[in-house]
């Protein structure tokens, strides 16, 4: 189980991005973390996976605990070895390497040959499409294929927790559905999933629990049903409003709504 407790992250020693974020990912579940741009979702991922150093960020308060051990100051490689891998925002496949080479880069921490081939087989059954493009340069794959490669690469280390940062970014609706089904498949295989999304509809349709983030902390959490029913989530993330109602943008008054969350 992953527990993020009261996490505070500061960039460049001045910019406070996370202000007391608390999130829990129980074993075997899919947890969605929603939030608008700049809410601190990607920073949360970096804090969990040890990549803050690259961006001059520091955890100033709180902790990240994985199965009872504090991992907030682990190196990225140690976190991968502990069983947490991620699919980075924007896919970030190694475009100059082939599909196979991308996958074996993902398996860097796995030294056992047998485990390696098993993971490879698993990825190939999950993504039959990659099978036919094994020797192709990853940069020439389509966006959807690259996303699948990125997910496959993250699965090569046989993680217990997979963190996906905006897997739906820049993909067509049909591909988003495909990715969603794949996430469900992966979860059915016993891997917990932390799904970071702006696409609330997609995330909440498969999550067991959801958090809504704003300005670096959780402002609302609960079962997907409860979140989907919430008026604010509907308006800000789903673009829904009462049918037939005409409304001027002047009446939207974002700031008042937000104020309720933050108080």
């Amino acid at each position: 189980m992953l527990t993020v407790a009261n996490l505070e992250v500061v960039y460049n020693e001045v910019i406070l991005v996370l202000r007391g974020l608390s999130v829990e990912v129980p074993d075997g579940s899919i947890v969605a973390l929603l939030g608008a741009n700049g809410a601190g979702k990607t920073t949360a991922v970096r804090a969990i996976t040890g990549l803050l150093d690259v961006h001059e960020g520091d955890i100033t308060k709180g902790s990240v605990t994985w199965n009872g051990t504090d991992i907030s100051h682990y190196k990225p490689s140690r976190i991968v070895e502990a069983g947490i891998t991620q699919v980075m925002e924007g896919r970030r496949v190694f475009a100059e390497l082939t599909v196979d080479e991308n996958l074996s880069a993902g398996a860097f921490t796995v030294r056992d040959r047998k485990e390696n081939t098993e993971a490879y087989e698993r990825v190939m059954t999950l993504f039959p499409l990659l099978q036919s493009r094994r020797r192709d340069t990853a940069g020439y794959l389509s966006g959807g294929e690259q996303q699948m490669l990125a997910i496959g690469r993250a699965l090569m280390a046989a993680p217990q927790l997979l963190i996906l940062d905006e897997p739906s970014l820049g993909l067509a609706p049909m591909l988003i559905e495909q990715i969603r089904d794949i996430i469900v498949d992966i979860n059915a295989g016993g891997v917990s999933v932390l799904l970071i999304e702006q696409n609330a509809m997609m995330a909440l349709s498969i999550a067991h629990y959801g958090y809504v983030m704003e300005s670096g902390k959780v402002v609302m959490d609960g079962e997907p049903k409860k979140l989907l029913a919430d008026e604010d989530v509907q308006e800000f993330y789903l673009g829904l409003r009462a049918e037939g109602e005409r409304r001027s943008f002047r009446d939207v008054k974002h700031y008042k709504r937000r104020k309720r969350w933050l108080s």
Partner: protein
Amino acid sequence: MAAALRLEAVDPRRNAPLAFLTGLVGAALVFGAVQLANDPGLFLQTFMKSMGLGSTYALIALGFVLIFKATQTVNFAQGALAATGALFLSFLATDGNIPFTSVSNPINSLGGPGWMSWGLNVIVALAFAAAVGLVVERLAIRPMIGEPLFSVAVITLGLEIMFRVFNNDAVEVEFRPLGVPWLANGFKVGDRLINWSFIAAMVTAAAAFVAVYFFYRSRLGIAMRAVAFDQEAAMAQGVSVGRVFAIAWAAGAVLAAVGGIFATQPPVAQTLSVDQETANIAFRALPAVILGGLDSASGALLGGLIVGVAEIYAGQYAAGNVSWLGAGYPLIVPYIVMIIGLLIRPYGLFGTPEIRRV
């Protein structure tokens, strides 16, 4: 998008290397055919010589490329590292002591043929060179990860000076023989001598390139290329960037040392000894690196050979005919080739074009 497509359709850079190479090779072929008919023995000797020089350059260039590709740093200390490696070999093989001690080197008393113990000495010297590379990386380069690349390059320049001072202090004004078993001997084709060192350089360079080819397809090599492409994404896969840096520096230092050993032999030098001149091999090989493209191993090979051919052939055939050029001018030919190459392809023959919006 439309603009990008149009650009690609008429992009002259795609055909430029081909035109460049065709022009160069065409002219060389015509010239070569005339010379071949004139004096086949001399032509063959010149060819082998140029391949020997080109291979030495290619070895040095490969060291540059390995380090640059992994760490994005141009290692200006490559020349001093080359001399250091050769110096270690001289300590082991000629002085017969373990470096910095008066304990006699056990390898020399193993018996067996001379070339065998020399070969073992070379391996030990290369191991020393690798250790030096590791130490340099750990002390001077690792703390600079994430700092501006220019600062790191200047640090390597400082290292070059430091190592040069140390080397020159050990060398003093003498020549320190390396104990190369084939000396300046060779075999004769007609009445022209072809040195064994030419052949040795070629074989070594070929072996080094094959090794790098397979290394880049191994687990660690893939990790190195991943780090080169996207450091953060590689870290997210659990690749330890520090280890990749260390391996790149160790391998770079070993290649430098190999190049340094060949830099004491014909055709680069005639002395078979380390002297204060040895460290300059890296600056002589620099045009090969730049011409081939700083981040491409095949570029290093091709660049090295092109530059080697240009330098030796210019020295052999133009020196006698064009007297006003003077005797030392073959040394500047590599730079001329490099400048022409860069005018046509600013990022080298095989280099990755850097796309930057201004």
